């Protein structure tokens, strides 16, 4: 008979090292928190600050659902420790728009139906924000590159790309262009 035991430390353990005070600047406001050093920015936002617009989907830096802006650049909040983010400007989905009107990126997502279940949407919106921050008039290829770290299981990609281009003011993002035919190996040609 094969036996396998998972036996860890037998003594009573208090995992630590224990909470430390930090100050996070989120969406323009300062918050004083007491968190374990291992607390991710994602958990600090969602659990300590109740900013649940930023989603936890993989918690391993594989899906992009937790994308937020750190000093204007997109990061995965699940891969950052909260203590690393002190003194930085953190922007979450709740920080877009003015409370009445939506941000143009958000509005473009609504107009283009650039979501289905909506769970990856805040991350997609923040990734587009970060792109437009550094490249206000991106090409479609740039949009696709910038969003390639944001998974959408519903497969709303085409609408998301259109929304990003609309938000950037790129003309006629609805024009559905089939990809150009490659030079080589075309049916009936090159023989």
């Amino acid at each position, binding site marked *: 008979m094969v036996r396998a035991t998972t036996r860890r430390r037998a003594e009573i353990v208090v995992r630590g090292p224990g909470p430390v005070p930090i100050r996070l600047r989120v969406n323009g406001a300062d918050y004083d928190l007491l968190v374990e050093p291992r*607390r991710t920015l994602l958990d600090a936002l969602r659990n300590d600050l109740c900013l649940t617009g930023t989603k*936890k989907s993989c918690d391993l830096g594989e899906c992009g659902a937790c994308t937020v802006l750190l000093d204007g650049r997109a990061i995965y909040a699940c891969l950052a420790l909260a203590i690393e983010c002190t003194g930085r400007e953190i922007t979450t989905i709740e920080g877009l728009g003015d409370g009445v009107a939506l941000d143009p990126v958000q509005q473009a997502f609504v107009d283009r*139906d650039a*979501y289905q*279940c909506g769970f990856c949407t805040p991350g997609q919106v923040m990734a587009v924000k970060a792109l437009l921050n550094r490249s206000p008039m991106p090409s479609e290829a740039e949009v696709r590159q910038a969003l390639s770290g944001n998974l959408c299981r519903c497969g709303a*990609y085409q609408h998301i790309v259109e929304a990003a281009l609309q938000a950037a003011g790129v003309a006629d993002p609805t024009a559905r262009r089939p990809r150009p035919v490659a030079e080589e190996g075309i*049916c009936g040609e090159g*023989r």
Partner: protein
Amino acid sequence: MAKVVKTRIEMEGETVERSVVVEGEAPPPWTEDTVLSLIGGARPRVDGPARVSGRAVYTADVRLPGMLYAKILRCPHAHARLRRIDVAPAMALRGVRAVLSHRTAPPIQWQNGVLLFDETLRFAGDEVAAVAADDEDIAQDALELIEVDYEVLPFVVDPEAALRPDAPRIHPRGNRSSPPRVYQRGDVARGFADADIVVETVVRTPTALHNCMEPHGSVAWRDGDTLVIWDSTQHVHGVREQVAETLGLPLSRVRVISEYIGGGFGSKQGVGKYTIIAALLARLTSRPVQLMLDRREENLATGNRHETIQRLRIGARRDGSLTAIDLRAIAAIGAYGGQPMAIAGPVQEFYRCPNVLTEEVGAFTNTGPTCAFRAPGYTEGAYGLETALDELAARLEIDPLELRLRNYADVNPVSGRPFSSKPLRELYRLGAEQIGWHDKRRPECGPTGARRRGVGMATATWGGGGGPPAHALVRINSDATVDVLVGTQDIGTGTKTVLATIAAEELGLSIQAVRVALGDTLAGPYCPVSAGSMTVASVGPAVRQAAREARQALRDVAATFLEVPASQLDIQDGEIVATMSPDRRMTIEDLAGRLNRFQIIGKGSRGANPNDVDIRTFGAQFAEVQVDTETGQVEVCRLVAVHECGRVINPLTTSSQVEGGVVQGIGYALMEERIVDPRTGKVLNPNLDDYKLPTVQDAPVVEVTMDDHVDERANVLGAKGLGEPPIIPTAPAIANAVAHALGRPLVEFPLTRARLLQALQEGQVGNGSSHPRPLSPRERGRGHRR
């Protein structure tokens, strides 16, 4: 007046006859001639702003005062027995509030005669214990402190191996998960005798994982005498029934809420172990408890599209007419469950064929249990049938589309009944024209060079007719706004927007005036599971009837004030107007103000389905691919998707549905595959790095065309469902395009680079022929002269 009627309802390949109660008078159908002002317009979702602003509260986002976080300890072995479990070290950890295990949990029966926390663990990921703690991190730490001795048992993960007599037994009655499901029409032996050619193939399809972006999970808390559950679910009323039954509570003392759900795709149709565990921990601690699974658990324990092995024989005459199809399918059910999904559905109903025999066998394996996944069974089955048909077409030297047209089923081959509508011929024509089929399939277009192009196509047939029971209430408020109360849920398909549109259309109001409350068993009357592409066709007619009843009542009341017969009153843009004398008018707001807070409430229920026709939905997809024979990379260059769902209520959300199905289909065709280590029985890729989902870089521009027509027999809307059909033909269309590019059929999926390169090495690819094997002289000489 309420009456009981018998009606046929189809869901995910199974048709049942049911007695249901229907009430009131069904509205006259919206026909082609009915003038509609809102239906058919492309409009953004009513809950779009909530979704893009982070305000939409999913189950994962529920935060309640004093809420605890729970985690599950899962078995690391493919098959094991618990010898000893000691939770004391975990209980001693500061912040841990409760631990549940086989020893402490109530003996709740789950499925296959197994307990919620069983002593035997049947897959690597089976539930061993659960912890509730003040914090997620503490709960995670506590899991590591639980001491478990396992007796490791022999295991089997391959479905064919599991069916051998000497295989390790997963359940006492053996590894057949149910009696084989056999379907027969005609006489296949005679059919094969009549055939000029017989194609035989064995197709293997992979285990695919749902990977909903919002993991499965629940929040449970006791509010007075009611157990309230937030659940990421496709069926709030179903979960309510199952929770009440499992915990022995009256139905009325359970309330299930799910306003926003981050993807389901079939995997969230019923109660999960996590739901019951959250409820038990909430009871133990008298605190709200949130139990959300993590990504690894999603990939191990929340269901999958089952792996299949499909042995297919197809017989045909020289002219391409099918004489017989024989399908023997084996599916890996996983550790728990029953029958396989409807793998044989495509073989049974896609084409006219007089002689069909199908047998579907489910095998228990020491892997995570299977469950429905978008068009369950049909997606797997279409892979087999549609790729085999292309092989048949190649050997007969008939164009694959022509082969399908020659076997077109004008009536349902299974029931013999006509369809409420079947515009598939037109869909084929539109798709072929759009992709340039006839140019690209010319015989001289054989494969050349390192990068090769090919085109392929495939068919979809699916249900989506919906049916009763489904109920709705429509309430007109004193400020002239309207509440639609339904016990359905919006799983991301746009249900809320569609129902608001239907109510607004019937009431003559703007969509902005209508609020749809769904996803709460307390607020909305019973509606079916959001699955089987049945929500719009089931719930939509009930909403329309309820809105109509409210409208009727509104006119009756207004008639008194305006001193005009109700029959001469119309409602336009929030005003009640006398059609004969338009100066006699009043706003709904004004009228509602005079009602002294009397609320007008209309109720509606979904009527019966017609008995003389079958309601099905159809589609065809055409793919153009480029295959790099040096790297094995397949690029989908174009994907033309032509579908129909009767009346299109919202073209915008419709295109989203089709594109989403196609993107998932691309994943299934080219990259998605759970890999289980045969030596350990463990899943090697339970994460989103190693289990490959399509990214934005993999998604082509999907060219969507809808054949928008009114299916007047289907229901009073003329609309059918569309959630599932778009995934059915994508993978086989791509596989057929790859086969066209390489000049040989492929039978093992998905078509990863490794698999493609292997096939290229093994096969006689590159001989310049686009036809795998033409008819042999013997085959040509056989059979009938016509």
